[in-house]
C-alpha cells in the first residue's frame, strides 16, 4: 500500500528551540492515524506544517505523491487536506448551515448544490436541527462537530483533527469517536488526529506515533504503544491505560 501522506525527516525550529526534530512517518490511505505526546511535544507544529500554516525548515512532506511542504494553507486544502483548529474557529456570525456551505463551495460552483451537500453533512454530524442558529451560539461540543463538518465539506482525502475531543465529556467523546469511525468506514477518508484523550485514541487509531520534545520516540499499533517503556516513561506515566 502506498502512503497518502508521507513525512521524511521534517524539522522546524523556533529560534533556539527545535519544535519538531527529523520526524518521519507514513499514513496509508484510509487509515485512522493518531499523533500523541505531552504538551509541547511539537504535535501542533507538525500539524501546522502539514496543513500549510507554516513551512518546514528541512525535510519533505508529500501528499498523494506530490510535495506539499511550503504550500499555503488554502492551496493545501484544495489539494485535499482539511483541518480543524485546536481552539475552534467557526465563522461566528454565520449560521451553522452557512459555515458548512462555505466549505462545500470549494469544489462546487452552485450555492444550491453546496447547500444540499452541507445538509447531508449536518445530518451526519447531528447538527441538522441547529442549522439555522448562529455558530457563535453553539455549545463547545457542537462547535467541535461544526468544525469537523466544515472541514469535511471541502471534500478532503485526508482530515486533520487537532484535539477535537479536548474539553468534551466522556459521553460526548464516545459520540465523536462513533461519528469518526462511521465516517472513516463509510467514506474511506483518511484521518490523522492529534489527541490527548487516550480513551479516544485507543478506540480510534489503527496506528499511533508518539512525539516527545519534537522527536518521534515510538510508532506502532495501539497495543504495542501502551507497553512501550519509553512511551510510558515520557508520556503515559502512572495513568497508563
Amino acid at each position, binding site marked *: 500500500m502506498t502512503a497518502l501522506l508521507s513525512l521524511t525527516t521534517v524539522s522546524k525550529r523556533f529560534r533556539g528551540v527545535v519544535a519538531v526534530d527529523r520526524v518521519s512517518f507514513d499514513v496509508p490511505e484510509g487509515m485512522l492515524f493518531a499523533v500523541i505526546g505531552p504538551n509541547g511535544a511539537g504535535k501542533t507544529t507538525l500539524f501546522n506544517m502539514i496543513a500549510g500554516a507554516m513551512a518546514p525548515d528541512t525535510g519533505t512532506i508529500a501528499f498523494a505523491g506530490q510535495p506539499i511542504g511550503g504550500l499555503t494553507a*488554502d492551496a493545501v486544502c484544495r489539494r485535499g487536506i*482539511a483541518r480543524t483548529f485546536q481552539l475552534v474557529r467557526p465563522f461566528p456570525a*454565520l449560521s451553522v448551515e452557512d459555515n458548512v456551505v462555505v466549505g462545500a463551495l470549494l469544489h462546487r460552483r452552485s450555492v444550491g448544490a453546496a447547500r444540499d451537500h452541507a445538509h447531508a453533512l449536518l445530518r451526519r454530524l447531528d447538527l441538522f436541527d441547529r442549522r439555522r442558529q448562529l455558530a457563535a451560539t453553539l455549545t463547545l461540543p457542537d462547535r467541535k462537530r461544526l468544525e469537523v463538518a466544515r472541514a469535511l465539506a471541502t471534500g478532503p482525502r485526508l482530515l486533520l483533527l487537532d484535539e477535537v475531543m479536548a474539553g468534551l465529556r466522556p459521553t460526548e467523546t464516545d459520540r465523536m469517536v462513533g461519528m469518526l469511525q462511521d465516517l472513516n468506514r463509510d467514506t474511506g477518508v483518511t484521518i490523522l488526529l492529534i489527541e490527548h484523550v487516550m480513551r479516544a485514541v485507543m478506540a480510534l487509531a489503527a496506528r499511533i506515533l508518539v512525539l516527545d520534545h519534537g522527536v518521534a520516540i515510538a510508532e506502532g499499533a495501539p497495543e504495542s504503544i501502551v507497553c512501550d517503556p519509553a512511551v510510558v516513561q515520557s508520556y503515559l506515566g502512572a495513568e497508563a491505560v
Partner: protein
Amino acid sequence: MAAIVARLTGDVSRRTMIWLAALFVALVIAPWLVSDYLVTVLILILYLAYTGQAWNIMMGFAGQLSLGHAIYVGLGAYIAAVLFTRYGVGPWFGFLAAMPVAAACGAVIGFLAFRFGVTGIYFAILTIAFAEFARIGFDHLDIVNAAAGLFLPVAQYAHNDPWRLRGSPTMFYYVILAATLAAFILCRALITSRIGYFWLAIREDEEAARAAGIDTFRYKMYAVTISAAVTSFAGVFYAFFYNNLFPEQVFNISQSIQMILGPLIGGVGTLFGPILGAFVLTSLAESLNSALTAFGLDLPGAEQVFYGACLLFVIAALPEGIWPRLARALGIAERVP
C-alpha cells in the same frame, strides 16, 4: 434570466417583497409629491445610499475597512468631467472609462496591502493615505485645472437629456434612484453567490477561511476592485449634478467618512442598512438645519456635531445598526447578518 431572478428572490419572504415594492413605488412617485427642495434632499440621500452600498461590499461583506473611498468618487468624477469638457464624451462613456481606472486603483491599493499583510487599522490608514495622495496630486494637476477647479458648462435646459446627464433635479433623482436600485440588486446577487460566501468567511476569520481552501488574497482583491468600480459611478454623478469639482472637496476625507456613516448607522454588512442609514441620517440632519434656520440660529458645524451624536448613540445602543433591529420588528430579517 429566470434562474437569476429565482436565486435573487429565492429565500425572500412575501412580506419582504411587499415592503420593498411599496418602498420602490413610494420613491418613484416621490418627485410629484414633494417640493423641489425635498427632491434635492432625496438625491443626497440616494447618493449616500449608493456610495454606502458600494463601500459595504468591502467592509460589510469582506471585512476590509476602507476610509479612503473618496479616491474612487474623485477618479470617477474627474475622468468623466475631463472627457466631457475637453473631448465632448458623454457621461455614460465617461463612466465606462472611469470604472476600469477606479477598479485598477483599488487593485493597486489592495495588492500592496494584501500582498504585504497590511490588515485592519493599518489597511484603513493606507486607504486614507492613497486618497490624500490623490487629493494633493489633483491639486497640482494642470490638465484638471489643479486647485482652481473644473467646471462643467451650466445652462438652462429646455428638456431633460439623460444621455448627457443635463436636465432638472427630477431627472437626476431618477438616475440616482436607478443606480441605487441597481447597486442593491448587485449586492444581493453578490452576497447570495459563491463569492459572497467566501467574503463572509474572510470577514469572520481569515485564517479559518484559508483553512477551508479559500484563496483569501484573490477574494479580497475582488472585493476592493468591485467596490471601487461601483463607487466610481457616484463620482460621475457628482460631477454632472454639481457641475464643479475641486480636489479639496471631492477627494476630502470628509467625503470618505460621510459615505460610511449610512452603513454604520443602518447596519454594516446588511443589504438594507446603507439605504436606511442614509435616509435616517440625512433626513434628521436636514430637519435640524431647517429647525435652526426657523429659529434664526446660525451654528456652523452643527450638522457634523449632530452626525457625531447619532454615531455615538447607535454605537452605544444599537451596535449592529438600526436595520437588524427594525427588520426583526417588522418580521423581515435578512438571512445574512
